[in-house]
C-alpha cells in the first residue's frame, strides 16, 4: 500500500486571553491511500483541530509546536504542510490534494451564492480549465452523487436544497477537484438517520472509485464501525488508542475506549443501564498531569498514572494503546 499522509508529533496550542491552551498534544498517525481512518472522541478532544491542521485552517491564534511535522506523499513528491505559507502554495492542501466536508452542509455553503458558482469557482482556482468545462464537470459531479435534476440544482442556492441533498452537493464539490485525501468532519451528524446511511454508502463508494484516503471525524462509534478501516481514539488532545476498527471495537484496550463503548445505548438490551464515563472532561486550562485520562479512569493503577505520560504499547496486531496497564508489553509504534 502507498502511504498518503504522515503526521508526526503534531502539537497545536491556542493563545487566548486566559492563557495558552493545548488542543492537540504530540499526536502522530499515518494514512494509506484507499483507507479510511476514523477519528473518534468527545467534543474538545482535539479531533477537529487535528483535521484543520492538515489544511492549516486553524485560526490565527493557533501556535504549532516546533516538532510538528505533516507530510503529504503525492505522486509529484512530498509536501511539507507546515512549511506552506503563501496562499498560492496553501492551495495544494486547501481544495487541491485535500478537501474537507463540514458538519453542517447548510452553513458551509455561502448563502447568497449559488451552489454552482461555488463549485465552478473552486475548479477554476485549482486548474486552468474553461468556465464552460468547469460547469460541465460540476454538473457531472452533482449527477454522480445522486442529485436528481443536476442542471437545475446547479443554479440553486443551498437553502433551496434538502439537508441530504446539501451534504451530497458538498461531497460533489469536495471531490470535483479529485483530491487525494478527504477530511470529513462529522459529515453525517446533522442528518437524519436514513439520510446518514445513504451519505455513508455514497462516501464508501466514492473512496473506492477515486482511490482516496479519508479521515472521518465523528463522535459516533456506530458510524465509525460502518465506515472506517482503522480507528484513532482521541481524548483531551491525545490519541489514546489506535488499530483496525473491528478489533478495537470488539476488544478495546484503553480504559477510555472501553468507557466510550460501554456508554453506548444498546438496542438489543433495552433494560441495560447506561454506564457513562464518570466525571466531566477537564477544562483545557487544567490539563491533568501524567495520563490525561487518569481523573476519570476506573482502572487507575497508582501514582504512575498521575505522574507519567504513558507511551504507546502494542496490544495486538497493528494495535496500540497509550496506557500504563500495558507497561510490560514493550513499546509499540506511535
Amino acid at each position, binding site marked *: 500500500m502507498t502511504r498518503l499522509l504522515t503526521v508526526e508529533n503534531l502539537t497545536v496550542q491556542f493563545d487566548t486571553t486566559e492563557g495558552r491552551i493545548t488542543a492537540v498534544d504530540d499526536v502522530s498517525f499515518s494514512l494509506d491511500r484507499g483507507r479510511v481512518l476514523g477519528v473518534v472522541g468527545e467534543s474538545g478532544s482535539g479531533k477537529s483541530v487535528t483535521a484543520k491542521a492538515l*489544511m492549516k*485552517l486553524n485560526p*490565527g491564534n493557533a501556535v504549532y509546536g516546533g516538532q510538528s511535522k505533516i507530510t503529504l506523499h503525492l505522486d509529484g513528491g512530498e509536501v511539507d504542510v507546515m512549511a506552506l505559507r503563501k*496562499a498560492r502554495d*496553501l*492551495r495544494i492542501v*486547501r*481544495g*487541491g490534494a485535500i*478537501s*474537507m466536508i*463540514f458538519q*453542517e452542509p447548510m*452553513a*458551509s*455553503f*455561502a*448563502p*447568497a*451564492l*449559488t451552489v454552482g458558482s*461555488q463549485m465552478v*469557482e*473552486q475548479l477554476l*482556482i*485549482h486548474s486552468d480549465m474553461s468556465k464552460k468545462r468547469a460547469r460541465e464537470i460540476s454538473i457531472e459531479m452533482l449527477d454522480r452523487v445522486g442529485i436528481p435534476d443536476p442542471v437545475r440544482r446547479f443554479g440553486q*442556492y443551498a*437553502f*433551496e436544497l434538502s439537508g441530504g441533498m446539501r451534504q451530497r452537493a458538498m461531497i460533489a*464539490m469536495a471531490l470535483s477537484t479529485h483530491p487525494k485525501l478527504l477530511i470529513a468532519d462529522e459529515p453525517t451528524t446533522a442528518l437524519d438517520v436514513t439520510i446518514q446511511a445513504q451519505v455513508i454508502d455514497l462516501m464508501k463508494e466514492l473512496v473506492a472509485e477515486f482511490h482516496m484516503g479519508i479521515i472521518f471525524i465523528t463522535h459516533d462509534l456506530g458510524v465509525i464501525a460502518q465506515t472506517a478501516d482503522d480507528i484513532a481514539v482521541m481524548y483531551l488532545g491525545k490519541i489514546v488508542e489506535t488499530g483496525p476498527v473491528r478489533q478495537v471495537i470488539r476488544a478495546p484496550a484503553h480504559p477510555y475506549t472501553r468507557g466510550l463503548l460501554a456508554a453506548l445505548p444498546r438496542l438489543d438490551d433495552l433494560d441495560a443501564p447506561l454506564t457513562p464515563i464518570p466525571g466531566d472532561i477537564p477544562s483545557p486550562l487544567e490539563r491533568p498531569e501524567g495520563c490525561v485520562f487518569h481523573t476519570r479512569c476506573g482502572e487507575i493503577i497508582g501514582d504512575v498514572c498521575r505522574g507519567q505520560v504513558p507511551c504507546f504499547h502494542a496490544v495486538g496486531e497493528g494495535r496500540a494503546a497509550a496506557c500504563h496497564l500495558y507497561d510490560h508489553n514493550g513499546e509499540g509504534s506511535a
Partner: protein
Amino acid sequence: MYQFTRFVAMRAVMAMLTLIIVSFIVFSLMEMVPGDCAERYLAFKNTQGSMISIADIEAERIRLGLDKPFMVRWLVWIWHAFQGDFGESCILRLNISQLLSDKFLISLGIALAALVLAYLIALPVGIISATSKSKVLNNTLRLVSYLGLALPNFLLALMIMLFSTVVYGNSLTGLFSPQMRDAPWSWDKAMDFLGHAWLPVFILGWSATAFAIQTVRALMSDEVGKLYVTAAKARGISGWRLLRRYPARHALGPIINSLGFDLNRIFNELPVVALILTLTEAGSLLIEALARSNDQQLAGAIIFLLTGSIVALNFATDVLLAIVDPRVRHSIMGGGK
C-alpha cells in the same frame, strides 16, 4: 420576474400608504397649533399697522378654504402635495414650492453626499479593521470612530469655522458666495456651490462615517467567523477574492438595510449644522418656520418632503435588498422562481 414586479408594486403601494399616513399626522399637527393661517396672517398685518376686523379674518378664512371640514382640507392638501403644490406660506404669503425651490434639493443633496462619503470611507476601513489582526490599526480606528461618535457636529463646525477665520481670515459659511446667491444656476454657480458645500458634507459625514464604520465592522466580524468562510478557505479561495465574494458580499444586505436609518439621522443633524454655517437650506427653514414664525403651512411642507425622501429611500433599499440577497428574494416569492 412577475413575482418580483408584484413585490416592487406591493412595496410601492406600502410606501405610498406610509406617506399618506404621515401626511395625515403632519396635517393634524399643523392643525393643533393654536389659531389658523388667517388669524396669524392678519395678526401679522396688524403689527404692521393695518386695522383688521373679524369680518376680514372670516373673509380670509373662506379665501384659504379654512371653513371646510378637517378631512376635506386634508384631502385637498395631500392631493396638491403629491403634485408638488404646498399652497402658500401663512406668514410670507409666498408660494411654498417657489420659496423652497432648490433649497430642499440642496438639503437632500448634502445629506446624500454625506451618506455616500460615509460609506465610501466606512466600507474599506470597516472591512480592513474587521479582518486585520493589527492591534495598532484597530485601536487607532476605534479612537477615531469614538471621536466621530462623541464629538458633536455643531462643535466640529464651530471649531472648523474658528480655525479658518483665525488662520485664513475666511469665515467659510453659507452655500454660495454673496455674488452668486441670487444668480440663476450656471456652471460657475455649481462650482461655487461645490466649493462651499464640502464643509457641511464633511461635518455631517464625520459622525455618519463613525457610525457606518462601526456598522460595517460589526457585520463583517460576524460574517468572517462563519463556517462558509472557513469552508471557502478550505477550497483554496484566498485574499481579496475571499473577502469580496464571501463575508463582504454577505454583509451587504444588513448594510443596505441600515442606509435608511443613516439618512434619517443625517437629516436630523443637518439643521443644527446649517444654523451654525448659516446655510439657507430646508432644515434651517424648518426650524425657522417651527420655532420662530410659527408658519404651519411651510413647516408641514418641509416635514412632508423629508419623510417622503426617507420613505422613498427605504423603498429603494427594500428593492435593492431583494436584488442582492437571494434569501430575501426567495421569501418574497414564496419559493417560486
